């Protein structure tokens, strides 16, 4: 499937900002399951300094600095991507690996030196007894890693209501469990937390999802969104994706931008602005098949 993505972020500042540094994580990765044919990022005001850099996780980051006064910042990211249907989930479904054996199996393998970090707590994903309890029933002794991961995805999907406005990026997963509401990054963080608390390696995927309008209606411009989901590590197979927000296995309408331990590593836009005034943000995303 070929997609054209347009992701526009607009910040409006109450007071003039005279200096701003931003780290943009918006360039989609090149992977066996997707090819990024083109990517362009336009920033307004035009940056005084800019640089592309590959981060620790292999993602492409774009650093931009602006040294002139502005009361508005616009980031327009456009990319063209070919996405292939994922094959890993099919293979993983047949994997006999038990979830409780994952850690010891992994520890024997070379990639442990890298994958080990996805077993550990990270800025938004703590070790927590509450989280352990929440997911206990999904991790039945003697069950496969595949079954446990699917059971967990389903449990999160059914326990949490998708509702924007109740959580922020800083809402702890324990609170999300109590609120039973959240947005896709809360779903993803909770699933990762449950997995890591049981000794399963999981990482955060930042990207886009193609959405479909209700039957008979036309798709609205800007109605898509940036999205977040989860990948679980299966030794010998690789990273297998799960989307707990929609309770589905990503096939070919999930477009990957970046991988990280959690949102902290791959936030689409992170920055520091020199100003003490308040700010407003508006995000529009369009994912179009071409």
């Amino acid at each position: 499937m070929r997609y054209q993505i347009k992701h526009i972020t607009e910040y409006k500042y109450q007071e003039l900002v005279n200096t701003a540094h931003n780290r943009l994580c918006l360039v989609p990765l090149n992977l066996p399951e997707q090819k990024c044919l083109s990517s362009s990022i336009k920033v307004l005001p035009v940056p005084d300094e800019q640089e592309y850099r590959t981060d620790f996780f292999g993602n492409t980051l774009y650093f931009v600095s602006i040294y002139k006064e502005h009361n508005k910042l616009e980031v327009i990211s456009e990319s063209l991507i070919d996405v292939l249907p994922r094959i890993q989930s099919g293979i993983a479904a047949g994997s006999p690996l038990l979830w409780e054996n994952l850690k010891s199996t992994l520890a024997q393998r070379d990639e442990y030196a890298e994958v080990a970090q996805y077993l550990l707590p990270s800025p938004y994903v703590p070790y927590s007894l509450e989280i352990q309890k929440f997911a206990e029933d999904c991790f039945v002794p003697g069950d496969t890693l595949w079954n446990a991961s699917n059971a967990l995805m389903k449990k999160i999907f059914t326990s949490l209501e998708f509702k924007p406005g109740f959580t922020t990026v800083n809402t702890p997963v324990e609170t999300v469990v109590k609120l039973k509401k959240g947005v896709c990054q809360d779903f993803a963080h909770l699933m990762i937390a449950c997995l890591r608390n049981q000794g399963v390696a999981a990482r955060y995927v930042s990207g886009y999802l193609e959405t479909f309008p209700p039957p008979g209606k036309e798709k609205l411009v800007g109605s898509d969104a940036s999205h977040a989901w989860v990948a679980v590590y299966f030794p010998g197979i690789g990273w297998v994706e799960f989307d707990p927000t929609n309770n589905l296995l990503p096939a070919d309408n999930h477009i990957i931008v970046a991988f990280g331990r959690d949102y902290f590593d791959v936030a689409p836009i992170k920055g520091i602005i020199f100003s003490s005034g308040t700010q407003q943000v508006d995000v529009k995303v369009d994912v179009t098949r071409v």
Partner: protein
Amino acid sequence: MQPSLQNLSTEYFTNQTAIDECFDQNDQVREAWKKLIANIDTLGAEELKNRNQELLKLLQENGVTYNMYGDSNGLNRPWLLDAVPFILPANDWSYIERGMKQRAYVLNKILDDIYGDRILIKEKIIPAELIYSHSGFLRPCDKIKLPGLQLPLYSADLSRGPNGHLWVIKDRTQAPSGMGYALENRSALSRVAPELFQQHQVAKLGGFFNSLMQSLIQIAPQGKENPRIVLLTPGPRNETYFEHAFLASYLGITLVQGEDLIMRDSFVWIKTVEGLEKVDVILRRVDDMFCDPLELREDSQLGIPGLLHAIRKGNVAVANPLGSSILENVGLMAFLHNAFQFFLKEDPIIPMIATWWCGQKKEMDYVIDHIDTLVIKGIERAGSFKTVMGSQLSKAQKDDLIRKIKFDPSKYVGQEEVAFSTSPVLYKERLDPRYTVLRSYLVANGDNYELMRGGLTRCSPEKGSFLVSNQDGGISKDTWVESAGESLPVIHHAPDMKRKAVLPSRAAENLFWVGRYTQRIVRTSRFIRIVLRALTQKGFVNTGADSESMKVMLKTVTNLTDTLPGFIEDEELLANPLPEIHKLVCQADYPGSIMFTLNNLLRSMYAARDRWTVDSWRIIDEIENIKRRIAVLEPGNIRYALTLLDQLTGRLLSFSEMTRQCMYRSDGRTMYRMGLLIEEILMELSQFRSILTEKRDESNEFQLLEALLLSNQNLSSYRSVYRTSLDIVPVIDLLFLNGQNPTSLFSQLEGLLKYARNLAQKESGVNDNEISRLVFECYSTVRLIDIPEMVAPDENGKRIKLDEFCIHVQNQIFNLSMKLNSKYFSHSTYQPQGNKGGFQFEV
């Protein structure tokens, strides 16, 4: 044994519980300590005690402090130094030298690997989890390298174990503290007790600091020969701020806070009064994860957004590098032996304290089984877990701890509980054996490490306690290494000497406010004293304002201190004014009171402490003492405020004089003087408005004019110049226009104009800028006044024109202060992008 030592050490040996550094198991003085003990004997027990007192007094006067977190006594807690030094025997010294160099080298290799190929992890020499789970592993710092050795500075704590060998207890790798205190200890002890040094050839410390400068120069970008080096401090509230300021002045480098620096065009710049200046090397005392809010902790206000970008570009070097706190992970201790073998095929020369990292099943089980004999630590230095000794826990506490360990084992280690050796500390007039830790310092020089021939020795504050840290009130000792006759050439490198000294904007602002607060206190004190004297004339009985002039004076006090409503329109308060006066002098939480301003002044002085000489600092210490006396003044004893305020004013004036001398012709002095002058003018105008705007009957007007002249210290000069009775026209002439009178408005503005033009000159080479023009306008306005016209009262007896004139000049001066503020002082506040609530995803 000599009698004097006996006096001091009668109970020493009965208190002995471990190996002692000074006395052997037969209570005989060890060889290395014999000469020192002989010197102590010669000095005598009494004299040693006196010197100990003197030592503490000297350190206090010099403002040597160690700040305590959460200490309600405020910012500065005195540094404790014992008169008895710590002697490192020659054989120990050569062992430490070899062992510490080896250790520094290996740690440098580990750091290089962790942010490089991570072979240690791939080869399972260090467990992956131990690195990945530690907050000191900073992914954005991956692959960033310094030229040469990766760890320019290194320090470790050493203690002597029961087997008589020195062991490494912990490593300090990101911003080792204490070397400045070591230097200060030496200079204080050699000044107060030079007799102790007789027969000794104690190695000098200066050479180490030259090497430190060399080391910093060596990492400068593009091999720059004369780099600009700055010391980055978290600020005056940091526990070792004294040391930051002290080291910066000692090394001749600029002391800065994060807000003084900015990243722009891939370089780091320092914001100074004269514009931006490029920075090449940053010696940091800010923890690494706070150094760049763009890529590390985004809630930090102590760093420089974009710093990592400039580092990656190779335009600025930071020592120690960001990310080096990973080496302070205590869990590493358990694997260092293997790392030594891996890199050097050698065992560590200095053994380290036995450590079991709970991230491994077998080790965790061992720790849990032996919890009674182990010390349990978290691997994070700044973590929420506080070190505990298993032996001191109750059953319930132990169970709780075991639960915590089992829940997240990789966060904990168990360490052997070692009985450190003791050394003698002079405590309550006798010697007491206290557990002792030596902090040793190394600096990279070329391909090698160089060890400080000395160090910082610290002893436990309480007998029998193993806790030796400054946070818990430890006592320090000067540390002696015999130099065995050799004298190393001491070469002086003063890289900043060739550079123009710069005044960071924040320092400029602090100096400006030191000037303003000083003058505010001087003027307020003087006027309050005049009022207080008049009020208490009648045998110190509490009298109310019984005359018109007294009421006006009390209202003037309210206006001067900006404490409205105060005496304005409050007949009750006017009838019984002393309680309000007491508040205005003594009450710290009453904005505008002398005490309130004094606290602000001391805070500004402290924040600019690298700018003061030892002599100035001694005066600051005296001001602190007077402050303490004012703080406890009872309302009934308000008359004593007369003397205290007199003393306070005296000290402040000597401080000004001292500053005038030691800051000769620098930008710092300009800022300080402008602060003084601006405050002086504002205070005078406030007095004029309160006292002169209404015409009163002759006797009241006489008293008021007299008070006004007195408070401007012009009464005698008035009499000598005008020789007439007090009349408003000549008074105004003297106070406003007289160029011979240094406190006249005209003279003050003339001074201000000179400084403003200086600034403009330095900045752009011309005399004129917005600020100097503003001052000139004020100056001309004053110059052109027509006094008789201005003082003529209207039909209601009001001198409206005079009042309007004063308001006009006041506004101009306020405006000037604001313009200085926005032009020269740093006020960059920043926040994360998308700060409000973060942004939401929607599907």
